């Protein structure tokens, strides 16, 4: 999938994560802050990268502000931001396909 325009998903509430994506040209440029950085920073990064890979996103500038979100929430926020960025988030989502 290609990031066509900036998009944002999620909130800064506890247990949520706010994900912002913008078009990029330099591969995956991830900026991550988390309220549980020491304990889960590595895993959060892995989840975000794995989700982007599944969506076949090659170039993106992505910022994640995590407030202790579980993996299922992180995935949901990344996917929503990516689908929003190409204007395809409202219908015909490939549930169970690249979204899983």
């Amino acid at each position: 999938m290609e990031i066509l325009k900036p998009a944002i998903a999620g909130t800064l509430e506890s247990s949520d994560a706010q994900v912002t994506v913008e078009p990029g040209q330099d591969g995956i440029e991830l900026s991550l802050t988390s309220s549980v950085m020491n304990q889960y920073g590595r895993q959060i990064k892995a989840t975000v990268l794995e989700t982007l890979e599944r969506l076949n996103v090659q170039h993106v500038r992505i910022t994640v502000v995590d407030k202790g979100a579980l993996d299922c929430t992180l995935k949901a926020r990344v996917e929503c931001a990516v689908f929003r960025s190409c204007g395809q988030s409202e219908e015909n989502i490939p549930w169970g396909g690249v979204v899983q």
Partner: protein
Amino acid sequence: MKNAVGREIPDSLLVNGREVYQGKQYMDGKYLQKAAPRTRRYEKPQESKLLDSIAEALRHCGAKSGMTFSFHHHLRDGDYVVNMVMKAAIEELGLADLTIAASSLGSAHDPIAGYIEDGKVVGIQTSGIRGRMGEVVSAGRLKTPAIIRSHGGRPRAIEAGEVHIDIAFIAAPTSDCVGNCRGIGGKSDCGPLGYAMTDAKYADHVVVVTDCLVDFPNFPASVEAIDVDAVVVVDSIGNPKKIASAAARISQNPRDLMMAENVAKVIASTPWFQEGFSFQTGVGGPSLAANLFLEQYMDQRNIKMGWAIGGICGPMVELLKKGKVGKVIDVQDFDLDAVNSIHRTPNHFEMSASQYANPANKGAFVNKLDFVVLAALEIDTGFNVNVLTGSDGVLRGAPGGHPDTAAGSKVCVIVTPLVRGRMATVCEHVVTVTTPGDCVDVLVTDYGIAVNPLRPDLIQCLDEAGIPHVTIEALKEKAYSLVGRPDDLEWEDQVVAILEARDGTILDVVRKIKPFTLE
């Protein structure tokens, strides 16, 4: 050297007779020689000890660089006195290399962080350490390792001379002109002054700081004039709104209520739940709510509580007034209901920290306590509890009376949610051991109850009462299945804080946290 809870204690700390923790009641039966203060004689009659300022009082007591000053924490987050005294000592008198030995410190004391960074304060001895001060100490900026003690361990250390207090500063809601202090009757009431009593008897000098001067003699006094060198009157010793909160309300949160009900169920299933039983609870949501459900069991079985101790708040005062508990013995008040009750409601008494929990005297209250209900930041599969360091390794809590009550009570119940946000409360190894597992009996979470295998008698009680329980390993696995298994924290070598067990042995150390980098 590894101690009895499996923590590695640097040998460099094991000097001057310091030992590692070797299990509860290790020091039982041993003799100790108590220290005595070097005090000034005030034989010549004087009408009053009033001095004009804290700076003047410091000079009167011969304050010098390198000294240890002590404080109590009855004014809690509303305290002004610690900051006022340290400001006068450092900025007006130009003193340095000072040690603060407080019964606890908290968010009110953020300015101290600045003095630590400037190297003016080189030592901290306390139960609680929070806010900016916690961050600064965790970052290794304090010249000597902080010493963390429980409410019972502190008077023990003072009496044994392990802490030598040069000047004790006693914030007093009321005082007369010669230093008889009380915790009620003023404009910044706090209730008891139990944490200040040992300081008053063992410090070389004692200065009373009050914002309400009353007629002589201010009796019955919690701190006596015979121990006081000087009295200073200031505009305000603290913010009343933060000293005693408005009446503590029992939580409405269904999760808290669910856990509280299970706590009461567990307690009621044990043989000690009978006429005249004794009880202590913390003030967290589920802990306090347990009072409510316990009362229902008391009514059902027509039994009364004999006595209750601890930090006291409204709901316990309610029980006293309803005649459902015989006596309430109070070491600290958390809300206005409690402050307005002590010394006034019949059978609501004050006690000193030593009477409450000192393991080295001839028998503190905790030794006779039946039940205690406590919270935890973390608890591991060995039932060791952490109430001091956050899961990010930063100092942000306090052992308080936790280790003392756990050690003394017949049944110690820890109540806590299984996870908090993305943090597993039940874990493989706690970041810091503040209460050793051999003192913790039952864990009640929102996902199940676990009993320490060291208590087969309690396992039998729960089984006979039909209360389901699981292993603590199962709870840990459930926690990790919800939030994922966390990476271990990484530490540098520098020891930033020493965790003393209540008997003075070393329970654990806190090191400087290695800053995390995402590669």
